[in-house]
């Protein structure tokens, strides 16, 4: 059992969200592996620090000021409803009057004409109605055309994305799963995220100042991480990062320890920053303008296999779901159906979990993680 997989389970293990088999595996591993045990204990510590955060009381005037606001809302709501009511009352009275008058006049009118004529009038009336509806159809055609145009637009986008993905997966063997399959199965409309990813690929290839940079094939997923030593303050660094649209959040995390040991370095202060890949050279330029960069190093890691494994796993689960659904249709026993439904629910959960993983990986692919060490001099 490898440590990466265990560390993915630690959080669920703590909350008792894993099945018995996994629970035993994790338990066993934590006895054997010092590193994972330390990670586990640190996570427990972080959770208990969260739990210790106190509940704070509502600000003093909270309820009073809320009450005033609620009264304001009620007043405006009430005003509106009065307006609506008046209007409704007015129209209904008017409608009743109109009906009353017309029916009375019709009544008077029909008294004087023979029955055959009334019958032909009815026919005329129905003809008129038919004509009216035809007119309506004509009128409605225009918006329909418009929506067709819209559809065309999205269709064009669709084919663009498909083309891109096809090209992206050209080299793959036929049986392997591609993100195209997954995407097609999930939704035919490309999201903005997928589209921007295409732009990103185009932009990144020229601008990356990566040392051991190799030609990136279209179907490869590369994660970049790096290291910088510079004599600016953390405040200045924050400003640079914010100006070029990077961020400081340690949200997409993976281990930077290996890089630090590789560089044999223990700095006084460190920050982890996330820089959009296409802005990397801009980041470097600005940093060099402000301070003296002692070390700067970016390395890449091919996570294509990892990425594709997850996609494959999603595909497998989706197949499993289809089979389960078929099985469910063949059963009549409500107990059995319930059981299968439970299983489908579990499979769905797994699929969602993996999709979230893919999303996280996509984020990691788009940003370059740099561990910046700040020294005073």
């Amino acid at each position, binding site marked *: 059992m490898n440590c990466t997989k265990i560390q993915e389970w630690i959080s669920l293990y703590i909350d008792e969200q894993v099945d018995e088999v996994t629970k035993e595996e994790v338990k066993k591993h934590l006895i054997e592996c010092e590193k994972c045990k330390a990670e586990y204990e640190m996570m427990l510590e972080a959770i208990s620090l969260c739990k210790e955060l106190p509940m704070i009381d509502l600000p003093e005037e909270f309820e009073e000021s809320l009450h005033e606001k609620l009264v304001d*809302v009620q007043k405006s709501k009430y005003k509106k409803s009065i307006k609506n009511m008046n209007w409704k009352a007015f129209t209904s009275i008017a409608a009743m009057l109109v009906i009353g008058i017309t029916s009375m006049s019709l009544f008077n009118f029909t008294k004087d004409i023979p029955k055959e004529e009334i019958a032909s009038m009815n026919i005329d009336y129905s003809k008129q109605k038919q004509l009216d509806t035809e007119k309506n159809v004509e009128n409605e055609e225009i918006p329909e055309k418009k929506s067709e145009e819209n559809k065309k637009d999205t269709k064009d986008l669709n084919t663009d994305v498909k083309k891109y993905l096809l090209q992206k997966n050209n080299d793959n063997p036929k049986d392997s799963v591609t993100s195209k399959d997954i995407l097609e199965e999930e939704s035919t409309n490309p999201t903005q995220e997928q589209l921007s990813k295409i732009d990103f690929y185009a932009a990144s290839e020229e601008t990356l100042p990566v040392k051991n940079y190799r030609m990136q094939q279209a179907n490869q997923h590369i994660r970049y991480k790096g290291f910088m030593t510079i004599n600016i303050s953390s405040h200045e660094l924050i400003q640079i990062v914010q100006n070029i649209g990077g961020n400081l959040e340690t949200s997409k995390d993976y281990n930077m320890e290996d890089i630090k040991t590789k560089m044999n370095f223990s700095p006084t202060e460190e920050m982890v920053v996330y820089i959009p890949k296409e802005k990397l050279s801009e980041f470097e330029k600005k940093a060099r303008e402000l301070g003296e960069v002692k070390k700067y190093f970016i390395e890449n890691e091919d996570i294509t296999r990892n990425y594709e494994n997850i996609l494959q796993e999603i595909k497998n689960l989706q197949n499993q779901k289809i089979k389960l659904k078929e099985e469910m249709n063949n059963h009549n026993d409500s107990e059995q159906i319930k059981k299968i439904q439970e299983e489908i629910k579990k499979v769905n959960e797994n699929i969602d979990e993996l999709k979230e993983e893919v999303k996280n990986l996509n984020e990691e692919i788009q940003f370059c993680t740099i561990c910046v060490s700040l020294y005073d001099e």
Partner: protein
Amino acid sequence: MQEKSLIHKSQQGHIESFENLIKNYQKLAFNIAYRMLGNIEDAKDATQDAFLKAYKNIDQFKEESTFSTWLYKIVTNTCLDVLRKKKKIKIYSYDQNIETEKGKVLREIADEENTPEKIVEKNEIQKHMQQAIDSLSEHHRSVIILRDIQGFSYEEIAKILNCSKGTVKSRINRARQALKKIIKSGELFDKDYVKI
């Protein structure tokens, strides 16, 4: 049963019933907002906005979930909106460190001597924990607050955040990893305070 009749009366616009209805939940709602936004002023505004939204739209409350879950959902979404707007304006957050001649100071200290925050957050570790939470991404922050600070179940969190249980599982794991890393690196605060 009583809650049902309060909901019914609130749907007819009865303010007092609505106030009674939220009475048991408003403190927790406010605390979610406080941890999400990091300061009392913003938390108060966001909570009140959320309650007003709930009052206006209580007709739309379907009894698929409990009222409290529905209310916390509105509160969380309102906070997420506030955070997104803040991000756009790109102002420095309260807790960002600033440099002075004497060294690094916390931005919030200057005008904070007697504010309730100062009194409430007696404990330095707690204060720095809030800073660590502030530095998480929106999604990670919300799951940490709901799960580890307020103790909601995975199912409840899925309902509040309108996503599947699988997503919640994965997100909680990621968020905890991130939080752990922040605490460990102590990148946002001095290492003397948090010893792990």
